[in-house]
């Protein structure tokens, strides 16, 4: 089977079963390894990316879901690592092992697109990614900083 996916504004022709979870198409067929596998059951959020602007746990949706819709992964967030979220994350030295952080950042992006000035309660309900290192304290501060940076942008 073959289908096209538009990921990070690039069209990819994929030869795979379209029922393959999007995560594995992204990681194995497209070679975009920034999106991570951890639980495989849509629990932890390490595989979070965006389909059509919405955050999705890509281990648990078939690739066919994304056909004809723009997909955004951590690799497409910015050309050179200077998205406000990446700047804020770096400023607070948020990551520890870093494995969950791609998904965490993609969840934070979805939150900020929906709520440019999120409250702590907004963060609590919408950033539901698991981090085993316990980076939450810095992640929360980084989200607030990123919100401020994004508002300051023209």
């Amino acid at each position, binding site marked *: 089977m073959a289908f096209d996916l538009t990921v990070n504004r690039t069209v990819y022709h994929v030869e795979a079963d379209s029922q393959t979870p999007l995560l594995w198409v992204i990681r194995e067929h497209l070679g975009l390894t920034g999106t991570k596998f951890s639980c495989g059951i849509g629990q932890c959020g390490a595989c979070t990316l965006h389909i059509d602007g919405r955050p999705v746990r890509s281990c648990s949706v078939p690739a066919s879901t994304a056909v004809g819709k723009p997909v955004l992964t951590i690799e497409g967030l910015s050309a050179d690592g200077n998205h406000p979220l990446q700047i804020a994350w770096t400023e607070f030295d948020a990551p520890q092992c870093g494995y969950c952080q791609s998904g965490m950042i993609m969840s934070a992006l979805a939150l900020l697109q929906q709520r440019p000035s999120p409250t702590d309660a907004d963060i609590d309900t919408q950033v539901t990614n698991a*981090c085993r290192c*316990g980076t939450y304290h810095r992640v929360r501060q980084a989200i607030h900083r990123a919100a401020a940076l994004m508002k300051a942008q023209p």
Partner: protein
Amino acid sequence: MSETIKEGVDRREFLATVAAAHGAFVLGFWVPSRAAAQSAPAASWDEEPSTPEVNAWIVIAPDDTVTVRIAQTELGQGVWTSNAMMVCEELQCDWKKVRPQYASANRDARERAPEWTLNVPGSGATDPKGGGEPTFGTRDPRGISGIPDSLYRRMRTNAASSVKDGRYYLQLAGAEARERLLLAAAQRWSVPVAELTAKDSVITHARSGRTTTYGKIAEDAAKIPHPHPEQITIKSPDQWTLMGTEQKNLDVPQKVTGKVVYGIDVRLPGMKWAAVKTCPVYGGDVKSVDFDVIRTLPGVRSFVRFPIPDPDLTRGRIFSGGVAVIADSWYQAKMAIDKMPIEWTIPPENAAFNSANMREALLTALDRPGTVRASQGDIDDGFRRAAKIVEATYSTPYLPRARMEPGNATVLITNDRVDIWIGDQSPQETRYSAAKITGVPEQNVHLHLCHLGGGFGRNGNGPQAEHAIMIANANRGVPIHMLWTREEDFVGTTYRAMGMARLRAGLDADGWPIALEVRTGMQADGFGSDASFNTTSRYYVPNYRYTHHTTKFHVPVGTRRGVGQAANEFYRESFMDELARAAGKDPYLYRRELLSRTTLPYKNDMIKALDLAAEMSGWGTPLPRGTARAIALEERGAETNGMATISAMVHTVSISRDGKVRLERVDVAHETGFGLVNPLSVKKQIEGQIIWFYNDAMHQSCSIADGRIVENNFNRFPISRINEDPPQINIRFFPTQHWLIGMGHDRATSVQSGIGEAIFQITGKRFRDLPYSKHDLTWA
């Protein structure tokens, strides 16, 4: 019993492919492929430098870029940065141009450490210039119970010891290189070396006004040995300019862009994927599989049955035998193995274990005499004279590390060489395993080390390497990427052993303990089972007895973050709260008084920690109903006169009437000792450990049914999210006069007792079995 892939890639062809595709320069040294997903800055493993190294830790390029070889694994603790800081403090190079890279475990197999790293002073507790107490007692080539004499000495990453064990010789490595750079400049300019200064990679001869850079002189320095390396000394903390400052982790830019290469991200030309199933009851093996059922499924290539990994390679632990299905993609392999009929041979004695009968066995063990590990005074006399006796029994469950990155490794084996791409906390052990399994000598085993998506215990990775090596060994010539599912990761990990403790104290008429008996129980191979009970009582008691009681269970146990100390801290500090309540005294002042009655060498530092944490928290000031504070001391090593790490924490906890717990605020007083290498990393490690032990306290346990681990994914083994993060974490450091042991694994253990004490204060109920979430925490 296995089918191997016919169309293997031969080494020469593989090398040609790599060279053509990536322009890699191959010259008598096989440069591994950079996978398609890796850009140059993200490639983390050893490469042949284009400029000669100054010494085994340091390569300086003409543009002054300093590559520092790191022998420890970055797993979130910041070791890539802190190890580099220790080297660069002495090197006096431009920190902005430092690039860490993994040290070569292969060179480590082939080269002996420079003489000047071999005689590192120990017992540096009271000497600011001391080497600390590295684990140099035994020199063990596998790096298990000591440190080898091989090139990079200690390559394992464990026990919060990277600074403790590495600092002296990492500083020396930087100093040796600096001295040789200065010598090279002195020779070039024909001036005395004493007239030169070095700062930020620039060498200056003030008298003549000449300057040069490290990059320009490095090639000369590489050729000039130091005449007296044994005379080179390291800086003491008062001379530090880089160490002791807050430095952001050097790899964060790669971590926020998805570019870091973890083991799971490794891609090689011709690589095939392996999914694995092992017998869910430890000690079990494959009885039969029916590969024909899945043979024609998409992408499926072959299968490999592999035995229980040789216990000699897993420190005696018995894992399970299993089977791997190899396919063109991992998802195809996983789908196929799920459909493959597999029958297991299960040892009935192991299948008979369940949480209830294991708990009974531990309770029975606690009733037996046990092994006496510490005995002071006359415990029986103490109890006879007691005005009041308090007794409590506590339990802690089996706990895995559950690191976010499931176990994996990529292995390519040919007849004379093994290549392994892996995130590994003990590469010297893995190298040994590879040689044992394949028959290829260790000198020909190449480990390409990757970052780990969480570590939390040296052998927490279980037999990931051994599985992958056995699978690849049956498919020589083909690179095999083995990846465990999350469920397999719960079988492949080692656990912190389930534990129980019974503490019994006799109090005098004023409520002060005059007898304390501590009994801990754990399976015999449990780690750190007697940690910090086995010397003396932390809190003063004239009559003290500590016994350890063992059972035999089948679950493979290992060094999980905090090891046995974490459980023991829960037992001890919980019991201190109970004693303070029984005595009608304030838990902070009760602890303080008992510490002050001891003769422990660092008692003043412990009291300082308690006082500072109490003060920071507003101890004693009123709180709303439903909110409570609890305090505890955390220390390791403070009973002896060596290195120690001391902190105290106050936990402010609220509980809603319907039983919802919130850790509202944590006030942390933590000592600096003579100096912290990177205080920012220390803060992050403290924050992380608060979450770690919050999860241990509130949510996490693995139970056993029919010999199997029941909770084997994050739906049943919960991990707290940002909504449970304490809104306030306040950390203050205070100076002390000894070296720290380390602080990466046993800080914030007090969250466990702290939440328990808060539950008691708010609800009136005392719970002694973790995690608390399984209890009714409601109150009226």
